[in-house]
């Protein structure tokens, strides 16, 4: 049989060109300008500001967009050899050009968003036009999208300056960012530990001040768990709130894009900016209540908070449990009604999640075949071998495991026993949450059973790693909004995060509670 060579699409670009953008190689050697920015901001580095504070200073002219961007690029250069939060950092030239353009537009009054000019890091599964987007996978090592994801586009319209694309578990499959094909990301709090995942790069970049805020995605906890491990705030909105157009799909029915920031206010403002009804995404929901910043109120009086007993049981680290209970006590003191209750079905969430997410992934990832873009094996005979070799070389072990699992549960003879049963379980879990939200305004619990594990510990036992998602995956199955708010540290000095879960479209309730937690923490 003759060799198959399918015509390369017009979107493909030279490999060399795209690799130039890789990691720190793209950052200019000189960064003395950065010091000027530090001095001008009154001795305190702009990097210490949160996103909204920086936005204000840019608007008032105290800091220029360029100063903020250059401070970030210098910080990236300093931190990346240790942290490795980014897969791709934009060319300094490109960042500078963008910074100047945004600065001019702010001065003209064309950009009025509180986030105008604030530099952002974007998870590498969100398409960015002319900026390499890899999903931390070899199969997309050279992929430069011809278009920008709607969520990112919304930020650009608000005047964001993109610093680069952050590392993640390959195709968002993993809980540690160790399955990335381009190397691990380290936890800025302790570099022996993982940052969590799959949005580990985004959370580490925020924690290490390598950006002012970041975008992540959450299919089974991928924003909330790494936010908890890195001591930052992250929101997974109600399914349908942020457009998935341009988000490279893992589990389409579960994926949502969300903000990761230093504060609750930053996250609320970013969520407000990225949310939109998008007619390019059939699962997008038109909402008129996207003014999330209006919920930044320090008052939880009369709020009914439920803590699922199942979330405090076996497998939960003692220190994390103590943190959750302490937080609950603080809420009670401020007039909230806090009760423990039985959510039920908790143990079924993980199997249902892994069946559904893997099934969807097995189909979603079929398009990566070496025909149109991305990696194609160099030597092969015939079409079949081209597919096989390209995919074998392009995907890592965790991705292959989930493609196999997903293909199996969808195959004839097993579909009813696995996939359909998982869908039914999903419906029952949603009903359990419906019953809970008939009683409570919000659910409080841990974001993860432990604080960040050490590098290399998790991948040895994938089943154990999957069990670490126990408090997060049910939220995706039910399409609910949930967020992580930092709540102190354990004895090792690693951050502990609280998880706040709301009913569908009730982001404002959890933002309000998270804001109160933040006030309490800052008051200490």
């Amino acid at each position, binding site marked *: 049989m*003759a*060799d*198959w*060579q*399918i*015509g390369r*699409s*017009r*979107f493909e670009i030279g490999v060399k060109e795209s690799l130039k953008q890789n990691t720190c190689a793209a950052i200019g050697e000189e960064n003395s300008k950065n010091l000027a920015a530090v001095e001008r901001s009154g001795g305190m580095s702009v990097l210490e500001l949160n996103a909204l504070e920086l936005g204000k200073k840019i608007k008032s002219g105290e800091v220029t967009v360029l100063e903020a961007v250059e401070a970030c690029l210098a910080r990236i250069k300093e931190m990346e050899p240790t942290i490795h939060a980014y897969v791709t950092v934009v060319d300094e030239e490109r960042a500078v050009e963008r910074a100047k353009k945004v600065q001019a537009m702010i001065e003209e009054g064309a950009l009025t968003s509180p986030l105008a000019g604030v530099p952002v890091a974007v998870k590498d*599964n*969100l*398409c960015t036009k002319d900026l390499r*987007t890899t*999903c931390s996978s070899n199969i*997309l090592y050279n*992929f430069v*999208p*011809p*278009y920008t*994801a709607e969520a990112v586009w919304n930020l650009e319209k608000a005047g964001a300056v993109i610093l680069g694309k952050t590392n993640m578990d390959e195709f968002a499959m993993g809980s540690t960012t160790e399955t990335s094909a381009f190397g691990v990301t380290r936890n800025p709090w302790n570099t022996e530990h993982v940052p969590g995942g799959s949005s580990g790069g985004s959370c580490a970049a925020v924690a290490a001040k390598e950006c002012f805020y970041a975008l992540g995605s959450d299919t089974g906890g991928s924003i909330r768990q790494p936010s908890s491990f890195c001591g930052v705030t992250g929101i997974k909105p109600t399914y349908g709130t942020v457009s*998935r*157009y*341009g*988000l*490279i*799909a893992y*589990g*389409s*029915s579960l994926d949502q894009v969300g903000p990761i920031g230093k504060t609750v206010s930053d996250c609320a403002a970013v969520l407000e900016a990225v949310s939109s009804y998008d*007619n*390019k*995404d*059939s*699962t997008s929901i038109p909402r008129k209540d996207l003014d999330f910043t209006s919920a930044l109120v320090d008052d939880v009086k009369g709020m009914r908070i439920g803590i699922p007993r199942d979330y405090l049981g076996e497998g939960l680290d003692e220190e994390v449990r103590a943190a959750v209970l302490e937080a609950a006590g603080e809420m009670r003191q401020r007039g909230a009604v806090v009760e423990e209750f039985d959510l039920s079905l908790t143990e079924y969430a993980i199997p249902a999640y892994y069946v559904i997410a893997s*099934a*969807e992934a*097995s*189909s979603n990832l*079929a*398009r*990566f*075949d070496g*025909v*149109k*873009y991305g990696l194609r094996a160099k030597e092969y005979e015939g*079409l079949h071998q081209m*597919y096989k070799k390209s995919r074998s070389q392009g995907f890592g072990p965790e991705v292959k495991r989930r493609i196999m699992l997903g*293909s199996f549960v*969808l*195959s*004839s003879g097993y*579909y009813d026993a696995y*996939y359909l049963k998982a869908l039914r379980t999903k419906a029952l879990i949603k009903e359990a949450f419906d019953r809970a939200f008939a009683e409570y305004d919000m659910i409080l619990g841990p974001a993860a059973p432990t604080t960040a594990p050490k590098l290399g510990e998790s991948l040895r036992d994938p089943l154990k790693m999957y069990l670490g998602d126990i408090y997060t995956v049910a939220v995706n199955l039910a399409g609910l909004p949930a967020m992580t708010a930092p709540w102190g540290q354990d004895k090792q000095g690693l951050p502990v995060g609280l998880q706040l879960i709301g009913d569908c479209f009730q982001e404002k309730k959890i933002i309000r509670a998270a804001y109160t937690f933040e006030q309490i923490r800052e008051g200490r």
Partner: protein
Amino acid sequence: MSRQYETVIGLEVHVELATKTKIFCGCSTEFGGAPNSHTCPVCMGMPGALPVLNRQVVEYALAVGLAANCQINQYCKFDRKNYFYPDNPQNYQISQLYLPICHDGWVEIETAGGTKRIGIHEIHMEEDAGKLIHDEWEDCSLVDFNRSGVPLIEIVSEPDMRNADEVLAYLDKLRMMIQYLGASDCKLQEGSMRADVNLSVREAGSPRLGTRTEMKNLNSFKAIARAIEGEKRRQIELIEEGKMVIQETRRWDDNKEYSYAMRSKEDAQDYRYFPDPDLMPVVISDEWIKEIRHRQPELQPEKMRRYQEEFRLPEYDAEILTSSKHMADVFEETVALCGKPKEVSNWLMVEAMRLLKEHEQDAQDMSFGPANLAKLIDLVDRGVVNRTVAKAVFEAIFARDVDPAAYVEEKGLKMVSDEGALRTVIEGVLEANPQSVADYRNGKEKAMGFLVGQTMRAMKGKADPSVVNKIVKELLTK
């Protein structure tokens, strides 16, 4: 052949819908165009691109389903059919398996044994694939994604047909119905209508179905008829030889008049169908169905009845005129202009049909407008041209849609009724044919016809036949 066999046939018909844009993106469905010029991230399967359903696709599918007396699944879904092939950019096709939009309908066909009902198992919506082009020169394959995402409906019949005639009648019925609905142009040659034939044979009277094969690559009605005959023969021979018919997909080669096995049931792929999570279920309200029903145009059977009543046409005329929506449209528009239904009908049924046959064209290929046909009928009516000349003018209209008045003027084809001028010509004809004149006078009346013919010939067909007749008779009986 000692035993009697019965052939059992079911059809899977793919029809490309006449939407302006593709089923899940805004790209044009226009035929042709430079390779990959009608594409976007969605129909090229780019990472992160998402499908959004074209409402018109649902409306066409509903219109066809209602016309075929189907039940409507008012809650229907799209499923992904997973398989790897380079013409399929996502490596899955978005189709409908579990809840197709229409099911359990029927259409009626006319057979030798009278009217027969053919069951429709289901109609579902799906997307077309791109096109692979193998470049022998460069030894590589190229993909053109212009067709990728063009909307299709697949109409699956029950195994209710018993011979090729019934199959052709069924296809004709579907084609006419869908053309009347405006849902597709249904051109087999261009691939906007494609039929796969499922066929099995069994001993006459047996209640059990035999093992079936599926035949693909049938590009014309003739090929379908030949393939059915060929496959029937092949299966009967196998059975007679005591061999088994294998359930498999076969590809018909119309040049060799033989089918070849493509793949058997054993290596049939597991398509791992599951509901597409990127698309919402399609909810079809009672109101929507009502609206589509209300908008449904007059279909062929009603139109045929109306032609007989309203235009007083014979059943035969009405049937031929309505056998194509385009023909019926030309008929009605011409009648509206000149108001002579029987006259218009004659031109279309006799002259237009003859020319179509000569050019091996379908009625929908007629390119002339009703205005010029109406003008021609008016010219004949007013005696400006005679019938012989009018036929020549009609050929010009058929070929190039010419204005008949201008054409007659330009070519000097006006009828000559002037008695003086004609008398001179006829006197010349009689003089040149003394034998015929003598024959007539000796009682051979036929001879007059010859003389009239000679006169018309001398006049290049432009003479008024009634005047010629009158003068010839007058001179002969002088």
